[in-house]
């Protein structure tokens, strides 16, 4: 899963106060497609932008476990249940790879968790929509993970080494997510009338939120230019959105489902689909926290954090006691 940068509020981090010589060397390295590693010199704005982007990405993976976790106990059979469990576990793993990558930039895990739980940090708007039927699990795998792959594949060449390496692992695992989702949709679409209706209904509800996952249109995405120059981002939001539409529409047609966009039309001249306008008002409302299940998602994460507090504390104290015990044994043995 993936999130675009949502918390910039229109102001890109600026590199104004940096040593011009250091900055020039850094920019040249990045322009030459070299990787920047944790101990290398980097502009503060690069560090901050990356911390924000990687931690938002990690939060999205973790919160993204909730909508699908909702269906684990109600998966229609054991095969689907085992698959869904594995997928949700992968999302947790992806969150952890990314938190580690962010930590190499000097932010602590607890700081990031606190930023999420206090509402200061954002996560992908897509997870603030509810999963109403089993078909939603199919639609999420196919569309949401599909959009995520589109976003993440170019990030395997992002300029920050630890982020790029996390993306390589994630992309390898993400492809299973998309295929299992499409397989669910394929089966439902080939099933009874009611099952087909359920698949179409899920596509109707998830299509537009999936297009929103690529973030605001390019002319309203002020961070894009600097992020592209620093190779934190490799393609613009609109480029990726177009690519996603072009790839996904034939997949829907192949299983007899209809993309819910009356303006959708193949444009021979462009060799791409024209498609309708995304409702950006809805997008910004969800970013502001007005998504259908935004409160529920945050409460679930807060509860998990608070309920786990005694475990974290007990394990820490136990480890300390054991370490002291071992030191005493070592002294005694002299």
């Amino acid at each position: 899963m993936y999130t675009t940068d949502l918390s910039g509020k229109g102001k890109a981090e600026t590199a104004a106060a940096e040593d011009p010589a250091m900055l020039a060397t850094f920019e040249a390295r990045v322009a030459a497609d070299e990787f920047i590693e944790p101990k290398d010199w980097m502009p503060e704005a690069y560090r901050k932008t990356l911390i924000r982007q990687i931690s938002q990405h990690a939060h999205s993976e973790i919160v993204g476990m909730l909508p699908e976790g909702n269906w684990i106990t109600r998966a229609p059979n054991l095969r689907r249940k085992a698959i869904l469990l594995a997928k949700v576990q992968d999302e947790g793993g992806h969150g952890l790879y990314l938190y580690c990558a962010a930590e190499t930039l000097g932010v602590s895990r607890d700081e990031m968790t606190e930023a999420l739980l206090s509402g200061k940090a954002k996560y992908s708007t897509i997870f603030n929509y509810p999963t109403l039927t089993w078909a939603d699990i199919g639609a999420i795998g196919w569309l949401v993970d599909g959009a995520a792959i589109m976003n993440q594949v170019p990030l395997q060449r992002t300029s920050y080494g630890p982020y790029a390496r996390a993306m390589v692992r994630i992309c390898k695992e993400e492809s299973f997510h998309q295929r299992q989702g499409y397989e669910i949709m394929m089966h439902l679409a080939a099933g009874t009338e009611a099952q087909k209706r359920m698949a179409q209904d899920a596509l109707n509800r998830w299509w537009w939120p999936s297009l929103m996952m690529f973030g605001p249109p390019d002319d309203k995405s002020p961070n894009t230019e600097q992020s592209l120059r620093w190779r934190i981002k490799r393609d613009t939001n609109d480029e990726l959105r177009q690519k996603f539409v072009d790839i996904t529409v034939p997949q829907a047609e192949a299983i007899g489902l209809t993309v819910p966009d009356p303006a959708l039309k193949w444009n021979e001249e462009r060799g791409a689909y024209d498609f309708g306008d995304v409702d950006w008002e809805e997008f910004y409302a969800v970013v502001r926290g007005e998504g259908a299940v935004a409160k529920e998602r945050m409460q679930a994460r807060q509860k998990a954090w608070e309920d786990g507090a005694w475990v974290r504390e007990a394990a820490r104290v136990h480890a300390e006691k054991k370490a002291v015990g071992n030191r005493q044994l070592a002294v005694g043995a002299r």
Partner: protein
Amino acid sequence: MSDPSKEWPLWEVFVRGKGGLSHRHVGSVHAADGKMALEHARDTYTRRMEGVSLWVLPSAQIIASDPGDAAALFKPAEDKVYRHPTFYKIPDGIKHI
């Protein structure tokens, strides 16, 4: 705000892909102790048969070279091409060398 001294420490994780290969760095995990770090490493980095053996060690124990010293450390090797076998011109007729 949380107390940083109460956060579980960070451990670096190394995986041996298969017998005959060396352990390779794959990422890190938080854990209260080494045993838990191994368990977390197993769950986080080997869900798809990525390895046959794991190493974990406290991240704080790693001593790393400074990128600022990279030139002093590694540049001197650049003009010592005579350390490579291709530096030496041997006539075509000479075999097994």
